[in-house]
């Protein structure tokens, strides 16, 4: 018998609950029993509550076991898991697990399936097809395809990607840059990380396509320092990619450089990120000029989120129409929703826009992990709204969320149970802004401090009505007067908490 392939993820979330120990235990047990196995360290499938999720390649497909602890390994061998044998931890074929089967995986099509650093695996599973097609197209045609796909920026603002690219394409410059924003600062989000660790080449392919589209020959990936595993995997992926010399013969070149962040949330904002890549303080710069016209080192620069760039290869490969057919209204394609907090089945769900919040949290997520009543879901990171249960039927797209004064952001969904105190969450939003403000403008710098102090008074029961009125004024000032969305959106979680959970603000 040839060696059985066993998959044990190397994704940081899987490692965080012991995947390395499980891989070692399987290796040992196999040696002890003198059976041939081959362990492959794949990315994560995104079913994080099952991590470490061990998969065995059987004649009928990959069979899933999880969450596996090292202590379970001998038992799994006894149960014949190498042939897909059943055990308390078995879930049948991975692809049949409803959580996975019901998704629409476009951007994450390979994540968890392949060996992240095998370029051969990458190509066997559809990688590089988009790039090959791109090399036959004019820059205008590439940009047109992206425009037609309806792809919008996945970093938070949802700006149409094709329009941004067109701006940079139309400018004549000796040098242009592509910057992948891998700062993923929004709490409750981990999709960029999962993709960089699970399918790093797709980001590189997307960057090269962007470079061919706008005429840029250098790309930067700015990765937050809180992601050491992603930094390592991307670093090795870049080496493998460059060595493969995939653009040979095309007359084009593309160099990729990785830069680490250093613990500043604001560096996820694009102008701040560019300052940081230049080795400076991450202070916000006033726009215009737009980075697409005058960006990194003063040159035209396309800044896109990791998921935006990673969605480009499949669009070029399968066509704009294929991608656009997913989704609804002005929100086309798929979104990687990330379920976190007090949720039974936390993880990544890639679905076409339009799926309801309820389906995500209750259907996919299975409700709270604690078994307690769910009180709210914060959508879109620390600057996003707290959504109350009576709005859970909202269809998840950019416009429908805006209609209820909420936002999608980077797709993070954080579930809170009945124990949450919403006045404290509102205070946290102000405190976070105080800690992370770049300090450039007064409404944000001073507003956050005043907002936090005012909430302290409300929580202590001091002149509650007057302080709520003052807080409202502070929020208005921050919304209207801040230079960027850090100060400008901090009122969103605060005001949504007051609006929907007023009973927590009575002192």
């Amino acid at each position, binding site marked *: 018998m040839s060696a059985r392939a066993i998959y044990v993820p190397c994704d940081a*979330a899987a490692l965080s609950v012991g995947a390395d120990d499980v891989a070692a235990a399987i290796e040992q047990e196999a040696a002890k029993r003198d059976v041939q196995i081959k362990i492959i360290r794949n990315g994560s499938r995104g079913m994080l*509550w099952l991590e470490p999720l061990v998969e065995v390649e059987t004649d009928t497909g990959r069979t899933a076991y999880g969450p596996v602890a090292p202590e379970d390994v001998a038992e799994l061998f006894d149960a014949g898991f190498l042939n897909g044998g059943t055990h308390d931890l078995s879930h049948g074929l991975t692809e049949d697990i409803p959580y996975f089967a019901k998704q629409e995986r476009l951007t994450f099509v390979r994540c968890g399936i392949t060996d992240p650093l095998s370029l051969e695996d990458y190509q066997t599973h559809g990688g590089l097809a988009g790039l090959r097609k791109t090399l036959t197209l004019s820059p205008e045609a590439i940009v047109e395809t992206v425009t037609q796909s309806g792809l919008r920026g996945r970093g938070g603002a949802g700006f149409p990607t094709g329009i941004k690219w067109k701006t940079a394409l139309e400018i004549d410059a000796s040098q242009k840059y592509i910057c992948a924003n891998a700062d993923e600062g929004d709490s409750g989000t981990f999709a960029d990380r999962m993709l960089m660790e699970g399918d790093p080449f797709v980001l590189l392919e997307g960057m090269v396509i962007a470079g061919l589209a706008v005429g840029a020959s250098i790309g930067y990936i700015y990765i937050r320092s809180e992601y*050491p595993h992603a930094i390592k995997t991307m670093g090795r992926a870049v080496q493998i990619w460059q060595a493969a010399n995939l653009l040979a013969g095309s007359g084009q070149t593309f160099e990729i450089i990785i830069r680490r962040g250093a613990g500043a949330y604001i560096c996820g904002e694009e102008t701040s990120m560019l300052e940081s890549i230049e080795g400076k303080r991450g202070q916000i710069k006033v726009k215009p000029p737009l980075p697409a016209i005058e960006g990194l080192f003063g040159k035209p620069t396309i800044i896109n989120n990791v998921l935006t760039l990673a969605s480009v290869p499949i669009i070029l490969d399968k066509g704009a129409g294929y991608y656009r057919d997913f989704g609804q209204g002005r929100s086309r394609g798929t979104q990687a929703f990330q379920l976190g907090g007090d949720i039974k089945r936390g993880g990544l769900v890639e679905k076409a826009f339009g799926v309801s919040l309820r389906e995500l949290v209750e259907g996919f997520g299975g409700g709270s992990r604690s078994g307690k009543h769910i009180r709210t879901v914060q959508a879109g990171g620390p600057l996003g709204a707290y959504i109350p249960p009576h709005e859970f039927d909202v269809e998840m797209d950019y416009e429908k969320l805006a209609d209820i004064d909420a936002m999608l952001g980077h797709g*993070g969904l954080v579930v809170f149970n009945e124990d949450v105190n919403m006045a404290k969450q509102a205070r946290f939003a102000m405190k*976070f802004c105080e800690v992370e403000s770049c300090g450039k403008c007064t409404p944000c710098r001073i507003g956050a401090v005043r907002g936090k102090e005012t909430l302290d008074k409300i929580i202590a029961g001091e002149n509650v009505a007057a302080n709520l009125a003052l807080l409202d004024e502070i929020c208005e000032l921050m919304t209207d007067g801040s230079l960027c969305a850090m100060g400008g959106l901090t009122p969103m979680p605060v005001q949504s908490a007051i609006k929907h959970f007023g009973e927590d603000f009575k002192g």
Partner: protein
Amino acid sequence: MNHEPKDKILSICADYGNQPDTLIEILHDVQVELGFLSTEALIQIADALNISRADIHGVVSFYDDFRREPTQGPTVKICRAEACQAVGGEDLAKHAKETAHTNIHDVYCLGNCALGPAVLIGDDLYGRVTPERLDALLKTKAAP
């Protein structure tokens, strides 16, 4: 300061071509090497990259990752953000402050929001960390 760290610092700067735009990369590497960023180290880096001392101080003070005081043991980063708050992260953070370990820092999200509370020790990520598990981890992984 003896000569060794200086040589090391200069060679890190040289690895990055002494380019001012690589300053943050250099600061990270030097901090790994020395455990913190001493004033002498900053002066040497500033000179190597031909940037002003005021500029380098400005950069170092802007970013939370950089430490100006010697530290003991690996850096422990505890997530204080929302998804971890929702599953007991604040109690964990409070517990962490009560331990003897001094190199503990607050961070806002470690990208492990489905398996919180999350903690990063050095470059190792941990999920579903209870106060007891943190104690055990600090004992085995983070002894100074």
